[in-house]
């Protein structure tokens, strides 16, 4: 059936079954491939997007449950103050290696920073331990979140 969703500030209409996970709507129907498929079971976090600012695993979120909530993906996270700071810190500290999981890492980290401007180590663990990085960039992810927390919001 037809669903109207709002993605990165734009209204989109898609015609899929209601149980279709948001991830495949984004990737295969709308062509927004920044959100990644990693496990399909909310175990790795590569598919993380924001629903009204909260991080969710789009691989297990059915399109029929999205409703009127605003969806933000990595393609637009740089337009948010927290997302912009996170992206900059990621570049400053050279976090990425293969880069495949980093969309999800950045979405989780941006949501953390937006809701908690100065996260502690254990708060970083809580927010980020659902995101696997096979290249092992964890040491830098932690440092980049701390640096982003210290950096000033752009005017």
């Amino acid at each position, binding site marked *: 059936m037809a669903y109207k969703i709002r993605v990165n500030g734009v209204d989109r209409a898609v015609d899929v079954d209601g149980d*279709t996970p948001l991830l495949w709507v984004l990737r295969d129907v709308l062509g927004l491939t920044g959100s990644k498929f990693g496990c399909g079971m909310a175990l790795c976090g590569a598919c993380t997007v924001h629903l009204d600012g909260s991080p969710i695993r789009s691989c297990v979120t059915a399109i029929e449950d999205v409703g009127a909530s605003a969806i933000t993906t990595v393609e637009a996270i740089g337009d948010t103050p927290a997302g912009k700071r996170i992206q900059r810190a990621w570049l400053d500290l050279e976090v990425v290696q293969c880069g495949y999981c980093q969309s999800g890492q950045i979405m989780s980290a941006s949501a953390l920073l937006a809701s908690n401007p100065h996260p502690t180590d254990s708060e970083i663990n809580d927010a980020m331990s659902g995101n696997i990085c096979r290249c092992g960039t964890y040491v830098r992810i932690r440092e980049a979140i701390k640096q982003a927390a210290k950096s000033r919001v752009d005017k």
Partner: protein
Amino acid sequence: MLLDRFTSFAGGSSGSSPESVSRRTFLKAGAAAGGGLLVSVTISKAIGDAEAADADAFAPDAFIRIDRSGQVTLIIPQVEMGQGTYTSMPMLIAEELEVELNQVRIEHAPPDDRLFGNSILGFQVTGGSTSVRAFWEPLRMAGATARSMLVSAAAASWQANASSCRAEKGEVIHIPTGGRLAYGALVDKAAKLPTPGNVALKDPKDFKLIGTSAKRLDAPDKVNGKAEFGIDVKVLGMKIAAVAACPVIGGKLAHVDDWKAKSVRGVRRVIRLEDAVAVIADHMWAAKKGLAALDIAWDDGKNADVSTADIVKQLEDAANRPAVVAKREGDVAKAMAGAVKTVDAVYQLPFLAHATMEPMNCTAHVRNDGCDVWVGTQVATRARAAAAAVTGLPLEKVQVHNHLLGGGFGRRLDVDNITQAVQIAREVDFPVKVVWSREEDIQHDVYRPYYYDRLAAGLDEKGLPIAWSHRVVGSSIEARWAPPAFVNGLDSDAVEGAAGPYAFPNVLVDYVRQEPPPGLTTGWWRGVGMTHNAFMVEGFIDELAASAKHDPVAYRRALLETNSRMRAVLDLAAEKAGWSEALPAGVGRGVAVMFGFGTYIAEIAEVTVGKDGQVRVQRVVCAVDCGRTVNPDTIKAQIEGGIIFGITAALYGEITLEKGRVVQSNFDTYQMLRIDEAPAIEVHVIDSDAESGGIGEPGTSAIAPAVVNAIFAATGKRLRRLPIKPADLKSA
């Protein structure tokens, strides 16, 4: 190791020996199609001097194109899988060409062994930590030659002497007048000049870019979702396929009832392969629903009852069979007989999956007159050959469009996913993207072999080894993947580093090949043979130190008298880790050293072991000497990541079989280390101007033995098998 074998069967010198690898570079410059200057780089490989003198006999290994806008494009065979190659290769060019790093762009090379062979491995491949080692001099020479030609062209325009001109930031400057000409304005003129021979390379002390932590060129697109991995390809008219291969290793498809699947909205086709079935649909979810709606009967075949225990039993039995000698020095039997004490042990390592974050995938479009393949691969020419074999098309009718790799770790050195995707795509007249589920990815991997090794040592009155024997028993990856490397029953990768970096007076290393049941394929895994042997050797050395009641660092030091670079990293790691400082109860420190890929490394792990047996690695200190460095920050990043990769394997990594099926399926049963478990990591890089060593793999290879040795220090329990099982360490 792998590298040695490739160079040795190619007739070259060892890729991992400390001695300099002698290769020669040939350059040819001329006009680029469509205007500009094109420099082709050819590296002589494994060919005698007489032939090597004739540069025309070779096809180029890389191209550098400078267009009329001054844009520099580097076309190289290496792929980017996280290791930083797309930054380090442009750095080599930019340094000598005198352009800013951001003026250099990279293009994926099309598949062609003749054009893009890796000079160490002999064909187009990214693996074995070879990229910087292969291209260190050739790319610098290419940059220097192009710069020299541009300077000559500018000098001619000014009717000046070239020596009165210099190059800087993409321009040639006439020093006396301050006149400037941009490279873009000079390329056509330069292209008409003869290629100069013997252009001098910079003295390393004058490097402006090499040796600095220049920013990764691939990073910006990896933080905003723009980076395109193989799985992200969009082709007009493309459909998506989900696939299920026979869950029993080596089994076949018997029968499929597909009427329910065909009624799932969006499902287009059901494709039957010999050992798998695929559902093609408008999008992945429809394909997955279609797949779930199939009623499939499998022919389990001969492996229907195979379990890991059967395979281990076969390996154990094989250990008693006659072995092929890999290394024999002195007389081990005699030395053992005369030893004050002998120690022996069996060490084992499990099958491992790669679990790259980007699951295996491949997009293919098969037509009567050609085939296109979109994929991220470490072996583009093999990808093309695989597609040609399935379609029956000649090689030149197959186009491989290579992409960024969402992790490689050796998995993308195989092309089974490409063969399968082309088999599916040839059944339809539109492009198909085949995406494996995570379960398919883990259950149909090419696995790191299970190894069952027997080690023995004879000790003198001081407790130092006077005899060392190591029998390696396991599958041969070379026999399948690089048959010319598998000579006289010996797999050189399986035995690489089997006597460690030590100088023992009497050594015997031998090998028994024992393959798992047909259908279970073994393959390269990060750190290759070194990851296997460093675990066996460094664990066993630690046992010897303990049996002699020596400190583990001091004991290794004593065995490395003549190996000054190895000893230097050991000393540095020990100093930085505070080796001699006391630790609280339940905490232990363990050390391991390794020489491989041309790199010397020492790692010291600090672990805690809970009463419940849970192990936590809280700190790792690494000292590494990988010769001269192109980008120090990339080296640190590779070591940090390599350590995490190795800890994941030590704590969790294990693929097991029951009734012929892989038991593990997703990240709940095949676990990865997560951020809350990640240790603090310190990497200390030794300043060196020796030849560059590889860096993608050493970090992984040395960490597991450091961790088990630290567990021994904390608990007195010696683990000779991975993964570490908390049940074995419970103290309550």
